[in-house]
């Protein structure tokens, strides 16, 4: 399954890099007389409500999905790693402060806070990344804090401390490398979550705004043509599900290889 994950993610990255060059069709080009046309030899996935090529828009949308996923995961993991490491290493008031903020943010289920933040800030790509990052770092901080609490008591860390190594050096050279496998697994699984979250917000009209192609936005617009042109809904949905599945397979494989202790109770 890990190989399937690598294949799907690799394909998506290639598609995002090549973009509309694959089809040679401008994703913004409108062919109104042919609007809502189903899949054909010329337009493999058909045309949307404005006569735009759905495959070209999916390829352009892959860039948005991967970009948002990478930005959200990259920033969240960095912020979470720093705050989690500080909380775990120093304990006391630092730990209390970070943990209480985490508690409050975790009191908002899933996407709810992101929906609220984008609702007040206004829908845009930047605000989506901001909102998802604001809720995303918590999971990484909790993970890193837990790992640091475990690692800081290990003998080699105590030896480094006894030898007079400075705290930043202990954290950077001795503790964080031990945390990285678990963080990598979480980040890989987080990519799928971030892509799904962006698509959800775009589906609700709170994410990427037209005419920029986004898979969630495409699904949202396709919904009104569910009866007369289901291909508008089917292909973007398949793309989202496949990419999320790819990251989940990859994350699962990485977890078994790098951090089996993170599995659901060992997973058997």
């Amino acid at each position, binding site marked *: 399954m890990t190989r399937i994950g690598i294949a799907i993610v690799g394909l998506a990255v290639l598609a995002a890099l090549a973009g509309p060059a694959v089809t040679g069709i401008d994703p913004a080009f409108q062919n109104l007389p042919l609007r809502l046309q189903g899949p054909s030899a010329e337009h493999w996935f058909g045309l949307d409500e404005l006569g735009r090529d759905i495959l070209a828009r999916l390829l352009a949308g892959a860039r948005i999905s991967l970009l948002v996923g990478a930005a959200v995961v990259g920033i969240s993991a960095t912020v979470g790693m720093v705050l989690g490491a500080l909380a775990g290493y120093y304990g006391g008031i630092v730990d209390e402060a970070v943990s209480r903020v985490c508690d409050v943010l975790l009191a908002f289920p899933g996407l709810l806070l992101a929906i609220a933040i984008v609702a007040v800030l206004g829908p845009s790509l930047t605000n989506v990344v901001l909102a998802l990052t604001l809720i995303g770092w918590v999971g990484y901080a909790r993970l890193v804090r837990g790992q640091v609490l475990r690692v800081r008591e290990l003998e080699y860390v105590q030896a480094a401390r006894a030898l007079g190594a400075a705290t930043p050096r202990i954290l950077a050279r001795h503790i964080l490398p031990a945390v990285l496998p678990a963080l990598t697994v979480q980040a890989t699984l987080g990519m799928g979550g971030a892509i799904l979250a962006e698509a959800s917000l775009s589906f609700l009209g709170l994410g990427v705004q037209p005419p920029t192609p986004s898979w969630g936005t495409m699904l949202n617009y396709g919904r009104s043509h569910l009866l007369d042109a289901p291909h508008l809904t089917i292909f973007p949905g398949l793309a989202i599900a496949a990419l999320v599945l790819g990251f989940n397979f990859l994350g699962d494989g990485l977890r078994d290889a790098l951090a089996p202790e993170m599995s*659901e109770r060992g997973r058997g």
Partner: protein
Amino acid sequence: MLRFVARRVALTIPVLLGVATLVFSLIHLIPGDPAHAMLGEAAAEADVAALRARLGLDRPLLEQYTDFLGGLVRGDLGTSMRTGEPVATLIAERVPATFELASAAMLVAVVVALPLGIAAAVWRGTAIDHGAMAAAMAGMSIPNFWLGPLLAIIFAVELGWLPVSGRGSLAHLVLPAVSLGLALAAMLARMTRASLLEELREPYVRAARARGVSRPRAVIVHAFRNSLVPVVTILGLQSGAVLTGAVITETIFAWPGIGRLLVQSIGFRDYPLVQGCILLIAVTYVAVNLLTDLAYGLLDPRIRYE
């Protein structure tokens, strides 16, 4: 046990205060003047000033905050800008629909997940296990905003078996509940499998088998019951995902619940109503988490003495 309950409840209070503070600050995150943003760029200055006064935005921040908290204690969530009705009333009207949908989705999840997870654990390493876990992984990856319309195309449009949207009969509930419950079912199935496999390795199961208890009986009567504790916990913790998923599912199926109210209020820039919906969902989630925590303590006495 009483001390355990009191400690857990006490730990919830600062969280609720943090939630209320964050919800209060939402309106102040609006770029520029919130009253202007709500009424639109073309609004007359007098209208903007009147709204600012009505929402109390012209008062000192601390005073606004204490008023907000005081209102919450009295059950006053403010007034909807669009309808002029109390936010609490509008929300109360929608609560039964969301409760109905969330409960049905959780029921779907349990009914699908338990047999799948048990089968995967019992026939571990076989095609049944691989198939069940691949299906579970797919279920976790399929967005419910795609699954919902697909189910509607197949079962409402093509086959005509079920209504496509709205609320009324039991038939109306089927598609939204299935579309919302399947992702949870996928997660629960994985957890059931993992938890059951762990229990099956315990000495008491081997002892039961050695005493001549049949394998199905050892699995169902002995191991399965004990494996349920983490599964129930996950079910409680995932109630949040169900509540957030309901925002999307209710929008797709025109289900008149809190989620749809939230999306509509965002569209109308009815921020007091947005705040009310967000607050209610978050507080419900905190309450369900607390109850799950307490239930866990009840089921496993070791938790109480941690």
